[in-house]
């Protein structure tokens, strides 16, 4: 279906697809098997100027928005969701600075991020604070010209690989929702270290580690935005990053569908290619239809967000929950279409199915997304 992309948007699609075709697809199976971070591929992505897509031009970026990120992530996800997640997580990590940072802070960090010289990561989740983000226990205490942070962040994507971390910590625990602030912690700051690398079911080319803050001392100017606005910035960050995750689901499902259709045309049983049988055709038809519906919803949500509307949470959560549930279903069906071959690591679809699962969990579980949508509907009908 034609989505009427501009020439520049088309260039983004082509650039990202070329990386997928030339660099990601040849390496993805090995990275997955070895649980290896895709450093050289991220460097290729940097050289192609993709890290700068959403950074304003004045800081060396391309000046694109949510839709441009969505386009790039979809093409990268056709290659490997692990690689695409690493790229997406860097964007997620720097969004707080874009949304709430001072111009000095933006000047300091954004140009290097735009060039892909430095990567970012987002540090919110803790052992006791997943869906219940307000349950975080990391603290930040003033000490003269410094903030001192203490706590442990869990399951942080790009942990140990990124250079710049946006950490959510409690500055006024007694103030509840107004009690948190965001800080930029850099690799090498005193008192900042990493835990072991996690061994995951999927997205194994993405690095997931604990972040350990033990009397981590950072200068006062590292606070992002005003004190106490932490959770507000987090919510705004997730609103604009969720379509990106949705788009990972779209790209992944596209790759899975491509494998399934190609296989069904070649595999002959009962004297015919199995695509001639209605059972297979109906599966493929449902996969393709839901994929296209998800794509249209994600693109629509991204464009809506780029128009800077008053309300975006509902639409953002809708596209995330729909596209990621779709991706889980489509990748599972792709394994089914490939049958015994689909179950073997020699074929790419089993990895796609393993990679899909996390999409329903991170950046807000799909249960939380449904909460958001329900609450927004409630608010809408009360206005």
């Amino acid at each position, binding site marked *: 279906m034609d989505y009427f992309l501009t*020439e*520049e948007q088309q*260039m*983004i699609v*082509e*650039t990202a697809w*070329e*990386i997928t075709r*030339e*660099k990601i697809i040849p390496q993805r199976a090995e990275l997955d098997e070895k649980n290896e971070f895709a450093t050289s591929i991220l460097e*290729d992505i940097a*050289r*192609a*100027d*993709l890290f*700068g*897509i959403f950074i304003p031009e004045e800081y060396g970026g*391309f000046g694109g928005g949510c839709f441009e990120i969505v386009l790039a992530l979809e093409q990268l996800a056709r290659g490997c969701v692990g690689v695409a997640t690493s790229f997406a997580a860097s964007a997620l990590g720097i969004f707080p600075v874009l949304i709430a940072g001072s111009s000095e802070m933006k000047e300091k960090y954004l140009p290097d991020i735009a060039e892909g010289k430095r990567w970012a990561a987002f540090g919110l989740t803790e052992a006791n604070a997943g869906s219940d983000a307000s349950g975080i226990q990391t603290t930040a205490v003033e000490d003269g010209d410094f903030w001192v942070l203490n706590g442990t962040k869990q399951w942080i994507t790009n942990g140990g690989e990124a250079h710049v971390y946006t950490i959510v910590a409690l500055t006024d625990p007694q103030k509840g929702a107004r009690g948190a602030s965001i800080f930029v912690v850099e690799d090498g700051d005193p008192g900042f270290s990493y835990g072991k690398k996690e061994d995951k079911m999927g997205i194994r080319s993405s690095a997931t580690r604990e972040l350990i803050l033990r009397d981590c001392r950072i200068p006062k100017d590292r606070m992002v935005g005003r004190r106490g606005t932490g959770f507000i910035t987090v919510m705004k960050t997730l609103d604009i990053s969720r379509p990106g995750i949705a788009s990972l689901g779209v790209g992944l499902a596209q790759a899975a569908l491509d494998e399934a259709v190609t296989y069904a045309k070649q595999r002959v049983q009962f004297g015919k290619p199995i695509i001639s049988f209605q059972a297979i055709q109906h599966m493929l038809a449902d996969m393709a239809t839901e994929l296209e519906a998800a794509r249209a919803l994600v693109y629509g949500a991204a464009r809506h967000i780029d128009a800077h509307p008053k309300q975006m949470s509902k639409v953002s959560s809708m596209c995330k929950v729909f596209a990621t549930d779709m991706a889980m279903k489509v990748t599972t069906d792709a394994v089914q279409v490939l049958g015994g071959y689909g179950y073997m690591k020699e074929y790419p679809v089993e990895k796609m199915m393993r990679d899909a699962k996390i999409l329903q969990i991170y950046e807000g579980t799909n249960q939380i997304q449904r909460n958001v949508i329900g609450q927004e509907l409630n608010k809408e009908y009360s206005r």
Partner: protein
Amino acid sequence: MEILVCIKQVPDAKDVRLDPETNTLAREGVQSIMNPYDRHALEEGVRIREQLGGQVTALSMGPPQAEEVLREAIACGADRGVLVSDRAFAGSDTWATSYTLAMAARTLGTFDLVLCGKQAIDGDTAQVGPGLACRLNMSYATCVQKTREVDKEAIVVERMMDDGYDVLRLPLPALLTVVKDINEPRVPSLKGKMKAKKARITTLSADDIGAVPEHIGLAGSPTQVVKVFTPKPRGDRMIFSGTAEEQVEQLLEQLEPYL
């Protein structure tokens, strides 16, 4: 450093078919691409410029649509693209082609380093690079698999041989033809693509380069393609496999009746 990279637009090899009736290449629906070896030559030129400064000029002799590969070259790091195109060049063999490229190069200025792909995947002759070097009076090396050092005076390279490689030092100006092992070309960047979109490709005609009519096109080509055909298979073939000893055993068995 002034670097010239010669590139050619060719049909994508995997799409090419012979039209069974006319026995010529069927070109409809076949994608045109930058000759893969030239892509590696371009990447090497851009890397050397990144190291030593200067300018990379991409040059192509071809029909008007060859402008596409020049834009692609700019997207991949070339500073400018020049197309030398004229109906009078039609039917050129490698002799006429190297003449035309040499005249174009002289028109553009003097170059310290000229880089070419080893061969074009449609002609497969590998003659234009060396021909161009001789016409420009430059030392040259073919099948270069690595650049070891380069400065304003000379370039040191590894030339691939059947049984290893030679290390050669060429004083500048020099010409190299390169093989794919030399580098991993970068993916064209977004900024590169935008620059390519806006770029003005200079087009030079036969007159612009001062080409003598007898030396260009069909008139200037000592060789001509008389016929292109798919050879008929010459009968049954067998492939022996196994260790050398086993294969010799099998071969002797087959040859026995004839000995």
